[in-house]
């Protein structure tokens, strides 16, 4: 049989996490079909069909699917699973919301945030905020997996899968979308950025986050934050990197004024190169940093800016 991969998207564009989850789905060793569920998603379906290794794209296009509510997605996906051995979902706030609902309706366990596919039945996943890695085996007839996409390389483009329209069930009466407030930023998405510059409590104020933003803009980077900075009200919660925030693994992660609580490290320690800037030379962040600068960030950040400018 085959694997059903649910595309992550915002109805306009396919999220890059989908290509990474595709790599995980392919590792299950069966043909992969991608489900694009949303409203006005033709462009998303085209992009999904162009990913190498996709056998077919299923498109469920209906106004009520625009908000990706768990009730509606589960009603769509559960009957489809009669034709599939496994459901693969990006571990985003959307995927984490609907996947367990599907698993329970199928009466099978879910493997959350898989970081390695060892075989069609064996997987690795982090527990205790990444302080231990479990190898688990699932023998249930259907597998439901959410994928920690930072652990997988993106599948390339180069495919030309067929696109098939499918019907969406009627809208659920249980839950209704009211509104959303999605921050608009010219900077790259935190989970997809090649460079992330994060600030912590050491920044001291919301205003001082401008220092972080200036460096980020010079590097084409996303801005992140520690929980302490979020709790102090310096920056909104969706910038939080860590066990309970976003998990990132960029090429370069720069932690500024972040001490490095294990919950923060859980969200960034798989970054390729880590830089730590902190006035406390005993801060745990230095134990995972490739390069460290001990000192006053208010002096160091402008110096970094100047050094970045010097060879441009």
């Amino acid at each position, binding site marked *: 049989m085959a694997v059903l991969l649910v595309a992550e998207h915002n109805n306009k564009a396919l999220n890059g996490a989908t290509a990474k989850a595709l790599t995980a789905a392919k590792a299950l060793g069966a043909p992969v079909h991608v489900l694009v569920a949303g409203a006005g998603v033709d462009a998303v379906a085209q992009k999904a069909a162009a990913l190498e290794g996709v056998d077919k794209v299923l498109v469920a296009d209906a106004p009520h699917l625009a908000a990706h*509510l*768990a*009730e509606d997605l*589960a009603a769509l996906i559960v009957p489809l699973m009669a034709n599939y051995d496994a459901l693969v979902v990006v571990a985003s706030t959307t995927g984490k919301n609907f996947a367990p609902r599907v698993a329970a309706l199928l009466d099978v366990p879910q493997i959350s945030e898989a970081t390695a596919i060892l075989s069609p039945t064996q997987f690795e996943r982090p*527990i205790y905020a990444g302080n231990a*890695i479990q190898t688990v085996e699932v023998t249930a007839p259907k597998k439901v997996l959410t994928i920690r996409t930072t652990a997988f390389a993106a599948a390339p483009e180069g495919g030309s899968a067929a696109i098939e329209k499918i019907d969406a069930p009627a809208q659920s009466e249980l839950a209704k979308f009211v509104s959303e407030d999605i921050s608009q930023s010219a900077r790259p998405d935190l989970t997809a950025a090649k*460079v992330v510059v994060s600030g912590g409590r050491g920044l001291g104020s919301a205003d001082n986050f401008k220092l972080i933003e200036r460096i980020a803009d010079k590097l084409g980077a996303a801005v992140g934050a520690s929980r302490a900075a979020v709790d102090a009200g310096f920056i909104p919660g969706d910038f939080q990197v860590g066990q309970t925030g976003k998990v990132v693994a960029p090429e370069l992660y720069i932690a500024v004024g972040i001490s490095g609580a294990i919950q923060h490290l859980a969200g960034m320690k798989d970054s390729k190169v880590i830089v730590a800037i902190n006035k406390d030379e005993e801060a745990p962040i230095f134990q*995972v940093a490739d*390069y460290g600068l001990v000192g006053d960030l208010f002096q160091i950040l402008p110096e970094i800016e100047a050094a*970045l400018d010097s060879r441009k």
Partner: protein
Amino acid sequence: MKIIVPVKRVVDYNVKIRVKPDGSGVDTINVKMSMNPFDEIAVEEAIRLKEAGHADEVIAVSIGPAKAQETLRTALAMGADRAILYKTDLPIEPLAVAKILKSAVEKEKPGLVILGKQAIDDDSNQTGQMLAALLNWPQATFAFKVSPQGETVEVVREVDGGLQTLALRLPAIVTVDLRINQPRYASLPNIMKAKKKPLEEIDAASLGIDIEPKVKVLKTAEPPTRKAGVKLKTAAELVDKLRTEAGVLQ
């Protein structure tokens, strides 16, 4: 309406866990245990809804060994009215937890079940969604604000990139995120009072629900460790290293 709040006993947030050298799991013997922090937030939210007149009873429910009574007493000391412990010594997976909670819901008929979004031991983030599925109730995960309004509850959720607001028909399932509230500390008089609040014990095996584990844990290992790197003297040196040695800057 009644509110049910499931609470889980987990290794305390501040404990640095130790993976057993033989790969058989994480050492939990003689380790400080506490209520899962997200469940504390859920208890707090339920109590605040009761204090605001939206609920008349808050029932804390736990599933686990006899020691989970301590976790329930914590919830009672915070302000829950009574507690139910479904006793079992088996390791219980999220789907089995959801099935047991479903039977608690059928017994108590709450208008809301408020859960933590995930437990900090297995980091599964599944139970609330699974319970919603089994009951065919609406769900709102990662809640940032919960506002009951007659027959519905409006929930603001923390989603990637911002906030989303949903209206759920009651009864409903809500899982809470970090920023919805700051849980209170139980005062000494309330801790004393909690000892007298009702705590019912039910043998989980008596429910006739299949709660055997379905996922086999083959191995538990330490994550690969990163080596600490070098400390540099100047910002210019850092930028130079990033350009040349690390090759991550142009």
